[in-house]
């Protein structure tokens, strides 16, 4: 069902996908005896629906909140059994958790969440895009729709090289050579242990944030290293002039391709310089664009930096205690990316 419905693939799911689904949902980084993934059964006992659930504790005002991330929501033949999806989503929201969350709701799921009084979070649902090399970007988009169009990629390079020498920054269309040269903060590769430490440091500035244990976060960081469909992983810490880490970014992508940013972290107020350092890094590596998921503090810093915003999927929260919605609505919650399911191999990796 995962292969057919979510991956749009033909034939049986690769063994690796089966093993990963089993590991992720039956032995997740966080265990909660009361929170589990859900299946829906037809009358004959066969499975026709699934909701993957990852327990993840959050902390708010000193209290630990039982929370659950819902994703991989699928129903086989939902037209024939419209009750299956309704019951799965309702059962998920009726669980023992304080917060029910998703960051990957498509249009249908978003409507269903809305009917169950879920709160759609616009600032967390916006997908951002920053074009670095416009001709390369168009070629990459064409190639993603029609593979033989990749032949146009080399032809785009001279055009982009010419364009990059023109125009006073910042430009909507591209990043010019003069834009970041020698002006951004220094970056260095961050190893797994350092990444875990910096994640915990940076998210603590948010009023509501995951209560990651070191071992669980280590596993998440380890699993996030492989996203073959997205490209090579780039995980860099951003350093102040004095060498102190002020931010971290994690993206995937190869030269000539569109990079996928999974997480941007920073000290409060340092989002802009961290974003600039990331754009400089991606430009240097030959990427044609970067895209990623918004968070209110990031979107605020992206204003004036020539980012475009679109909506692809929704981040949604449901809480029985409505006061818990406040930090999400005010943009004081750390949500999406590692505080979601984007770190998993289900998004961006291959299993064959």
């Amino acid at each position: 069902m995962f292969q057919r419905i979510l991956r749009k693939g033909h034939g049986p799911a690769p063994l690796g996908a089966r093993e990963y689904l089993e590991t992720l949902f039956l032995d997740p980084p966080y265990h909660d005896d009361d929170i589990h993934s859900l299946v829906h059964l037809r009358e004959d006992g066969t499975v026709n629906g699934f909701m993957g659930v990852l327990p993840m504790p959050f902390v708010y005002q000193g209290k630990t909140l039982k929370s659950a991330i819902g994703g991989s929501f699928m129903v086989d033949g939902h037209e024939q059994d419209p009750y299956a999806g309704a019951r799965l989503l309702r059962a998920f929201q009726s669980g023992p958790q304080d917060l029910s969350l998703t960051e990957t709701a498509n249009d249908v799921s978003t409507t269903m969440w809305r009917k169950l009084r879920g709160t759609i979070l616009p600032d967390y649902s916006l997908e951002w895009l920053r074009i670095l090399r416009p001709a390369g970007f168009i070629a990459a988009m064409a190639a993603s729709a029609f593979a033989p169009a990749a032949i146009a990629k080399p032809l785009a390079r001279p055009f982009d090289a010419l364009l990059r020498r023109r125009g006073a920054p910042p430009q909507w269309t591209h990043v010019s050579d003069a834009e970041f040269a020698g002006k951004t903060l220094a970056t260095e590769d961050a190893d797994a242990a350092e990444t875990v430490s910096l994640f915990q440091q940076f998210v603590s500035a948010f009023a509501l944030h995951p209560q990651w244990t070191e071992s669980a976060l280590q596993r998440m960081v380890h699993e996030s290293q492989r996203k073959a469909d997205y490209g090579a992983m780039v995980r860099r810490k951003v350093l102040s002039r004095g060498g102190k880490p002020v931010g971290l970014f994690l993206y995937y992508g190869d030269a000539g391709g569109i990079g996928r940013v999974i997480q941007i972290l920073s000290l409060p107020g340092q989002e802009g310089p961290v974003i600039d350092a990331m754009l400089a890094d991606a430009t240097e590596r030959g990427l044609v664009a970067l895209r990623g998921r918004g968070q209110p503090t990031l979107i605020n810093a992206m204003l004036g930096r020539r980012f475009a915003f679109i909506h692809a999927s929704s981040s949604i929260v449901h809480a029985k205690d409505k006061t818990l919605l406040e930090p999400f609505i005010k943009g004081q919650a750390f949500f999406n990316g590692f505080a979601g399911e984007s770190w998993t191999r289900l998004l961006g990796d291959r299993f064959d």
Partner: protein
Amino acid sequence: MPQSINADIRAFIIENFLFGDEADAPEDDVSLIENDIVDSTGILEMVSFLEEHFAIDVADPEIVPENFDTIARLSAFVAGKKKARETAPAGA
């Protein structure tokens, strides 16, 4: 079953799934699913309506065609829930 329950459910369906057009209103025993009046999203909308309007709790296993597929079944379901609440011992 009280007529008001049936009337309230019927009014909700007309308003929310039939664009307010009473001419398209289904008979009490017409399947809402088979006649494409309600889909999975509509079922959830109905659940929220029943809970908020009639002050009842709908358990997940109760979201089945036997309770939700027609106006008559919905009305009977709500009436049963309300009756159970009224006859339950205080504090239960």
